[in-house]
């Protein structure tokens, strides 16, 4: 194969990891699984996450995955409480 291509190896994630810490992966996976088992729809999920983000952004800015997945976890806690109480 042309040398140009072997040098320009395609990185599936452009070198970035999907998660910075195991807890981020865990909260991500829990939300996906609860959606799949029908505890909430993805639209309900997006609304709750958006609302957590909007609240946070009144006074703060999301700068990294840590900030973001904390809000993800808050949204998940909120929906679990609503849907499984």
């Amino acid at each position: 194969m042309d040398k140009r291509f072997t040098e320009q190896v395609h990185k599936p994630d452009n070198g970035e990891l999907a998660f910075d810490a195991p807890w981020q992966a865990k909260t991500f996976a829990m939300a996906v699984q609860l959606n799949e088992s029908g505890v909430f729809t993805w639209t309900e999920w997006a609304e709750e996450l958006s609302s957590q983000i909007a609240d946070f952004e009144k006074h703060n800015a999301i700068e990294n995955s840590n900030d973001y997945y904390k809000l993800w976890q808050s949204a998940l806690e909120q929906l679990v409480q609503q849907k499984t109480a």
Partner: protein
Amino acid sequence: MSEHTHHHHAPPSEIEERVKKLESLLIDKKLVDPQSLDLLVDTYQNKVGPKNGAAVVARAWTDADYRKRLLEDATPAIMELGYEGRQGEHMVCVENTPQVHNMVVCTLCSCYPWPVLGLPPAWYKASSYRARAVSEPREVLKEFGLVLDPEVEVRVWDSTAEIRYLVLPLQPAGTETFTEQQLAAIVTRDAMIGVTQVSAPDAA
């Protein structure tokens, strides 16, 4: 807001405790299964990524009929290559031309086409990108190193829980003789979000 200090022997942080507590609760209620959680993480950490989208783009560049199908109705066209699933149920492919440059954002949260691009990069979720992609897209593109001619129209697409966008970048000049596989290797994630363009590899 961010804490970059890292204590290897520190007790679990508050957020780690919260996640663990919720996980235990959901396992007790049999609402989640630990093995499926691990499988999900592995999938998005290691298996699904922009390589999928790059294959779609390369096919569109080399097969005019496929390109037409992709632009008309992206979801089944993407499925033809075997990419489907969560957050790819309703895909729309937007085509860059010499006159129009498309870029994608999710202003409210972080909606993103997982089956073709994997999970979004940190900057896509950041407040700054989500606000500025709409208020000053050309400035944002400049920061990604893309300076567009003022004549070029910039279209910004706001993803939702229902609709996910994939940008079909312009095929760079000098790649006309490339094979589909060679083309797939030069298509980047950022170009498919629409914050950069695809460039031809430097001549060896």
